[in-house]
């Protein structure tokens, strides 16, 4: 029996990705070791399938080198990896500000609570935030009455690091509910576009681990398309928040210039 890998980067820690809670197991034989096939393409990618949709690209091999994720080869339950890239037509500062205020938005109505657990600036000047997201999935009331209304919320823990000098924002999130069944770990990185500073590039990764039970390929495909559609909802949500922020700024600027009369001034005028 192969011993548990040591020195792998931890999934649950702020610094990286690594050993999952399911331990080492049946997935190992199934996933195999990532290797380059005869045509030079990543053999693991061919086996898992490419989940990239639309403007994103499935870049499993491009973005994840086997050495960075040693436990993928070992497998732990069933693992799926999904990556995508997206470009926002807005500068990095706008996108980062919007990301900090992402909820509420109409595309993610199930997120019902956001709390900051910790926030501090580290010695190198980066802002670390640990947040808790509560989501409510709209279970039917009969289910709620059976399991208790207080237990219908699921929670996600999020750690973000904003570096204003290098202009990067990295966000990692992991579910803390149903961890005995599934782990969904997401990583998002926002950076200015290398060619155009008025644009921002978002790189996203998701690693899903299902403990013990091996899902049929239909369910795995379903999860893949859910993640993909959630990711595009997330991008839509960002565009919505950015649009809202810009509209607020415009309004404030216009009112400062006196081109819009405030309701009070208008009422005062009307009275005269």
């Amino acid at each position, binding site marked *: 029996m192969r011993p548990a890998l040591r020195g792998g980067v931890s999934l649950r820690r702020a610094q990286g990705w690594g050993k999952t809670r399911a331990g080492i197991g049946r997935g190992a034989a199934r996933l195999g070791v990532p290797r380059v096939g005869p045509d030079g393409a990543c053999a693991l990618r061919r086996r898992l399938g490419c989940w990239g949709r639309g403007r994103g690209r499935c870049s499993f091999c491009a973005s994840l080198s086997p050495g960075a994720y040693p436990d993928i080869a070992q497998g732990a339950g069933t693992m799926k990896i999904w990556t995508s890239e997206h470009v926002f037509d807005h500068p990095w500062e706008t996108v980062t500000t919007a990301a900090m205020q992402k909820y509420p938005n109409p595309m993610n109505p199930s997120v019902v609570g956001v709390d900051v657990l910790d926030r501090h*600036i580290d010695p190198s000047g980066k802002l670390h935030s640990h947040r808790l997201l509560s989501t409510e999935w709209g279970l039917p009331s009969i289910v709620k009455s059976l399991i208790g209304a207080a237990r219908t919320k699921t929670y996600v823990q999020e750690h973000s690091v904003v570096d204003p000098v290098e202009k990067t924002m990295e966000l990692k999130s992991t579910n803390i509910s149903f961890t005995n069944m599934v782990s969904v770990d997401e990583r998002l990185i926002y950076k200015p576009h290398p060619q155009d500073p008025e644009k921002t590039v978002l790189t996203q990764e998701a690693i899903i681990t299902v403990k013990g039970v091996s899902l049929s390929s239909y369910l795995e495909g379903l999860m893949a398309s859910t993640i993909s559609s959630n990711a595009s909802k997330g991008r839509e949500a960002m565009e919505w928040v950015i649009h809202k922020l810009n509209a607020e700024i415009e309004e404030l600027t216009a009112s400062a210039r006196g081109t819009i009369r405030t309701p009070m001034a208008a*009422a005062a005028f009307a009275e005269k």
Partner: protein
Amino acid sequence: MTSECAVVAAATTVAMNSVGEACTDMKREYDQCFNRWFAEKFLKGDSSGDPCTDLFKRYQQCVQKAIKEKEIPIEGLEFMGHGKEKPENSS
């Protein structure tokens, strides 16, 4: 009247709730303070003097209580000071 309502509606944005019902107002106050500081100071390179620390402390105490009450399994985080990582053998 309708234009007044429109301006007011635009000004009062729908805000997020807190995990603890009692903490929502504190959270919103803190969020407003933080969002302003973040966009106007921090991103422009001025990370001196976070004006929101008092608001944050009160909000934090409320949240910690709510989390304990609801038994939410937050991991790898100590609330006092900087977050500390969990030791490897307990993960």
